[in-house]
């Protein structure tokens, strides 16, 4: 699985796992209301009045995968720089004003989107809207501050990647898995390219992509569309639309060769194994396989009663842990895969063989319709929990819209997943998992010399 997003936060590392976007059987999910301003900015309200709090988010339809070659990390760097001020709200003041008003905020960058958010008492909503609208167009950047922030991002890279063998391997695995698609580049950027990013690079990227017609406003919590609409018109509606380039994403060539990526590292304490295939997303490849693949991951490796866990961890005791994962929420190619950690006395090669054997058994014998029914039921039911939050629905809806899904599609999720059959699951399994072009990555301990 690719790392979903990286952000500016340090101690408020809010990494939102938005895997669930469903609702109770029959019911809709988040019941968002939406309209579009004359300048093209989409506005969404998700009402939940349990506490007098709102989460205000602006999503830009641009991310790491939209960077030009040679400037990896630029989308994320700009996200950091958006806190460096405008004429009205000078450097550092944005966060200070939000917290002075009892709010909390941050931002994060993905491959397909960049988002800025604040959670604050609902009567302070106009304040954050005004500031967020201001920095959509009025960013000013001081050369020294850009230089200091570049050092911060390099430290962020060291913390997240360079000090962690698993992250180092994951970065190299992505570079192998995607042959041509920009998901192959690290979101945070390669260190030597981060070092070369300039104020001018950042401003050019900003002017190119940051426009109301390329943005989505999502407000969740103690808000109604009736109250939101006039505020959205007042703060965002006055910003003129500008031409924004189309997102050009290169095609991925056919994957025909299996690859292995191995890293032996002194900080790795034990072996671990992952295998992934490119898999369809809603906008790439055979999108009808997306939900069946999610169900397949649940059946094969979604917890301690799943097939792989029962067989390899409990019965055969070859693995300490094992599981499956599936994506689908990207604009470009997603991934499907398996991971495992061998048990003491077993090698990563043994584990690999055992997982392959299980996979062959599934491809040969199929999955039991009862297994599928159980997985579907539990996926649908778990979606009820998705509403139990002000911030999570704002994230889920914003992310889905930012990659190009519609509210109707988000809301129909429970019905769609409820309709997945065992035949569809097997068809998807055959379509994806019999392809040769997978990447196996192995992390091994390296004795200190």
């Amino acid at each position, binding site marked *: 699985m690719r790392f979903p997003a990286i952000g500016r936060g*340090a*101690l*408020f590392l809010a990494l939102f796992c938005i895997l669930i976007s469903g609702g*109770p059987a029959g019911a809709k999910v988040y019941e968002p209301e939406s309209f579009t301003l004359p300048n093209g900015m989409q506005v969404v309200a998700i009402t939940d*009045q*349990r*506490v*007098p*709090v709102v*989460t205000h988010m602006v999503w830009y339809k641009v991310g790491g995968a939209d960077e030009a070659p040679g400037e990896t990390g630029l989308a994320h760097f700009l996200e950091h720089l958006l*806190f460096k001020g405008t004429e009205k709200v000078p450097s*550092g003041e944005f*966060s*200070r004003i939000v*917290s*002075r008003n*009892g*709010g*909390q905020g941050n931002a994060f960058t993905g491959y397909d989107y960049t988002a800025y958010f604040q*959670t*604050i*008492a*609902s*009567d302070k909503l106009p304040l954050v809207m005004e500031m967020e609208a201001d920095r959509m167009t009025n960013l000013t950047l001081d050369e020294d501050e850009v*230089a*200091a922030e*570049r*050092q*911060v*991002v*390099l*430290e962020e890279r*060291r*913390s997240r990647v*360079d*000090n962690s063998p698993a992250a180092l391997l994951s970065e190299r695995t992505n570079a192998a898995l995607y042959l041509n698609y920009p998901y192959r580049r690290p979101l945070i950027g390669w260190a030597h390219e981060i070092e070369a990013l300039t104020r001018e690079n950042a401003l050019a990227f900003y002017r190119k992509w940051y426009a109301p017609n390329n943005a989505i406003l999502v407000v969740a*919590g*103690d808000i109604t569309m009736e109250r939101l609409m006039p505020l959205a018109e007042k703060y965002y509606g006055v910003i003129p639309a500008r031409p924004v380039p189309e997102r050009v994403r290169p095609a991925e060539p056919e994957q025909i060769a299996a690859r292995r990526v191995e890293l032996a590292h*002194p*900080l*790795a*304490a*034990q072996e671990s194994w992952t295998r992934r295939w490119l898999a369809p997303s809603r906008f790439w490849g055979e999108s009808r396989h997306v939900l069946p693949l999610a169900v397949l991951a649940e059946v094969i490796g979604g*917890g*301690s*009663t799943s097939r792989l866990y029962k067989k390899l*961890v*409990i019965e055969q005791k070859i693995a*300490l842990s094992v599981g499956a994962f599936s994506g689908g929420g990207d604009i470009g190619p997603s991934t499907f895969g398996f991971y495992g950690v061998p*048990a*003491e006395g077993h090698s990563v090669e043994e584990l690999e063989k055992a997982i392959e054997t299980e996979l062959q058994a599934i491809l040969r014998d199929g999955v039991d319709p009862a297994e599928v029914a159980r997985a579907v039921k*539990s996926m649908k039911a*778990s979606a*009820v*929990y998705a*509403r*139990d*939050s002000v*911030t*999570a629905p704002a994230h889920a809806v914003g992310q889905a819209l930012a990659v190009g899904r519609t509210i109707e599609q988000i809301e129909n999720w429970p019905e769609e997943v409820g309709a997945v059959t065992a035949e569809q699951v097997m068809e998807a399994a055959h379509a994806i998992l019999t392809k040769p072009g997978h990447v196996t990555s192995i992390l091994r301990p390296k004795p200190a010399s």
Partner: protein
Amino acid sequence: MTKMLLRCAVFALGTLLVLGHAGGAEAIEIRRVVSPGGIEAWLVEDHKNPIITLSASFKGGAAADPDGKEGLADMVAALLDEGAGPYDSEAFRRQLEDRVIGLGFSAGRDGFSARLQTLTENSDTAFELLRLAMTEPRFDPEPVERIRAQIVSSLKRSATRPQTIASRTWWRAAFPDHPYGRPDSGTVDSVGRITVTDMKGFAGRVLTRDQMEIGVVGDIDPERLGLLLDRTFGALPDTPAPTTPEAAQLSAVGETFVVEQAVPQSVVVFGHRGIPRDDPDRFAAAILMEIMAGGFGSRLTEEIREKRGLTYGIYAFSLPLDGAQMVMGGVSTRNDKVAETVRLVREIWAGMAENGPTEQEVRDAKTYINGSFPMQLTSSAPIAGMLVSLQRDKRPLDYLEKRPELIDSVTMEDLRRVAKRLFHADELTFVVVGQPKDLKATAPVPEPRS
């Protein structure tokens, strides 16, 4: 680890709850529910979603692990939902997964907690599974050995992580003779020694009605909750709680330890004595900690990250444990900038002790503390957690209403006095893991305790 500590600290400091406002949103109303059998829980009713969330805490965590059996509390936490009553591990897990019931246990330094989340329609089963897990855990050989292997593996994995090494070294140096100086989750050896008898003993000793606190949020009324409380917790023994850990004095005060490790970025952990949870100065301390380390705009982040680009993140927080109170912090920076970063932390610390905060900082911190609390309560689980910590800290039911006033009434004079009491630059003990340049260790790194 740090994340968990951080959360504890935030809750320990508490703050206030906005009880409705002009916008017309519903207020959060806390009710005290006492079951027919005399079991108390604090409840926030909320029927918007068909979900019930429960949090329960007990006294006695890792600090109460017997010597040589470090990691016992953690191991019990990992095994209670691996088979109980008539259900073996798989049958138990299947019950949970089929009904999408979230049930889990966790151990802290001083306490042990349970959390349960269920759809209303499955609540009978969910509470029954919680009861079975607490009163009839099976500890069958298969799950015991499987979980033991997973814990050992995770101990090995974390043992190479600079963050873990820094934190463990700090605690070992600060508390050489106290349970707090031992690793919470144990060692490969100690976890290997834990027996089923140990685990059954722990469960019987810790999971008792004495000093149990329960918080419930969601789609349930007091009558039904009362019924479920009796059914679920009624069978727990009502024995006196395990003794709280002895008060501990911090050792290695003011020392700097360096653990050599070949990483591009050094990880630094620092800390010194703090003030207790019930101290009359705790509100002033909360304000000062906010000014010092409350994220963007705070002194540490402003000076070390924003102005100088020395780090991606620097943090500090109060950690009032039962047996010792601390102010802890951490930062990571490239090896050639560690000395400068450590020097700056000391300077910022000393500056606050000497001059106190500015008027503007105090105004901002007060509005932040008073305004930000509802932000933590935007889903059920943190509300349930808050209900538990309010009870643990013996706060009255209307505490949240009074809280803003208590924060607002802290004076500049209080803050200057408490700044001197709270921040001691020369007492900060630093542990650095990495290859720091130009930074001298003042003492040898203490050996792990056996």
